[in-house]
């Protein structure tokens, strides 16, 4: 009998099959874009009677009421002005110990960034979006100050044209080719100079 060669498989429908799969994955795909504002909650403390006394001038009170109105130090304020007000408060340096502050050194405002505390209070009726906006502006105030500081001290430490946000990003980036220990030292120094002291009132 004559030897028969195996017939060639028709690959014409390959494209159709691939399209079918492609469309399935197209439809089910959700490209992950998980990003957000990271916060750390205060731990549950054992009840103690000692109250830490903080000077009134070192507290920057931000109240967001049930109608989403913003009250900063008991005055109404627009959201867009909050960042500037917070920066002025944090960067004030009233007692003169802060040699890197650029504030007005107003004795009625905060002593130094280490003592300055932002107290955020909201009510149950406050909308979540307003709350996030305020959180965002306050984080932005800290980031602005830290960025400015990073651009000041960065060049001396060998990190040119790198602001604080970029420094943190580079520190986490495994592909970053630079001295990570030195970078960590700079980041820690800036964090210590402008510590994020944001307290939420329950």
């Amino acid at each position, binding site marked *: 009998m004559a030897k028969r060669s195996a017939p060639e498989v028709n*690959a014409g429908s*390959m*494209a159709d099959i*691939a*399209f079918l*799969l*492609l469309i399935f*994955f*197209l439809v*089910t*795909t*959700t*490209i*992950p*874009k*998980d*990003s*957000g*504002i*990271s*916060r*750390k*909650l*205060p*731990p*549950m403390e054992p009840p103690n009677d000692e109250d830490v006394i903080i000077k009134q001038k070192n507290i920057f009170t931000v109240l*967001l009421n049930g109608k989403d109105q913003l009250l900063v130090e008991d005055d109404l304020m627009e*959201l*867009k002005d909050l960042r500037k007000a917070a920066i002025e408060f944090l960067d004030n340096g009233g007692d003169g110990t802060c040699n890197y502050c650029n504030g007005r050194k107003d004795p009625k405002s905060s002593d130094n960034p280490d003592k300055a505390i932002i107290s955020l209070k*909201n*009510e*149950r*009726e*406050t*909308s*979540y*979006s*307003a*709350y*996030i*906006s305020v*959180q*965002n*502006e306050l*984080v*932005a105030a800290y*980031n602005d100050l830290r960025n400015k500081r990073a651009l000041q001290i960065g060049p001396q430490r060998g990190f040119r044209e790198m602001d604080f946000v970029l420094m943190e990003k580079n520190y*986490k980036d495994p592909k970053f080719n630079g001295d990570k220990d030195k970078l960590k030292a700079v980041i820690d120094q800036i964090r210590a100079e402008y510590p994020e002291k944001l307290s939420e009132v*329950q």
Partner: protein
Amino acid sequence: MSKFKSKKDNALPAVNTASLPDIVFMLLFFFMVVTVMREDTLLIENRLPLADQVEKLEKKYPISYIYAGKPARGYEKYGTEARLQLNDKFAEISEIKAFINAERAAIREELVDYLTVSLKVDKEANMGIVGDIKEQLREANALKINYSVGTGSALDN
């Protein structure tokens, strides 16, 4: 002259589609790689507020998701107030502690301390429910939280 005349007619030749499957496969593989199947079916409305000072959530550490918002269409019988969703069902505030403990039991022991709770809360929800969730998380000692937001200007919220 007829010797040099082309035998073919002058119509355009058909485009060769032999490489079409390759192109489609390439796209297919791209989508297969980037695809993440939704972990939870949402029973609530979940439009995230906008912010611009965002940090990427590190995927290398375990993340638990807590959703909150108004019940979505089709679940109107659960009311119009913002509700909490854990896994695939509506939950009460008091169930958060059990949820966190269950999440902790499911991950490797050395990662337990790194558990981040991602709060995906609808922007129309009010802070009452968020405050309650935060209170429960503090009690469960799950202190690393992340408010999930979309990227955009916070002034547009």
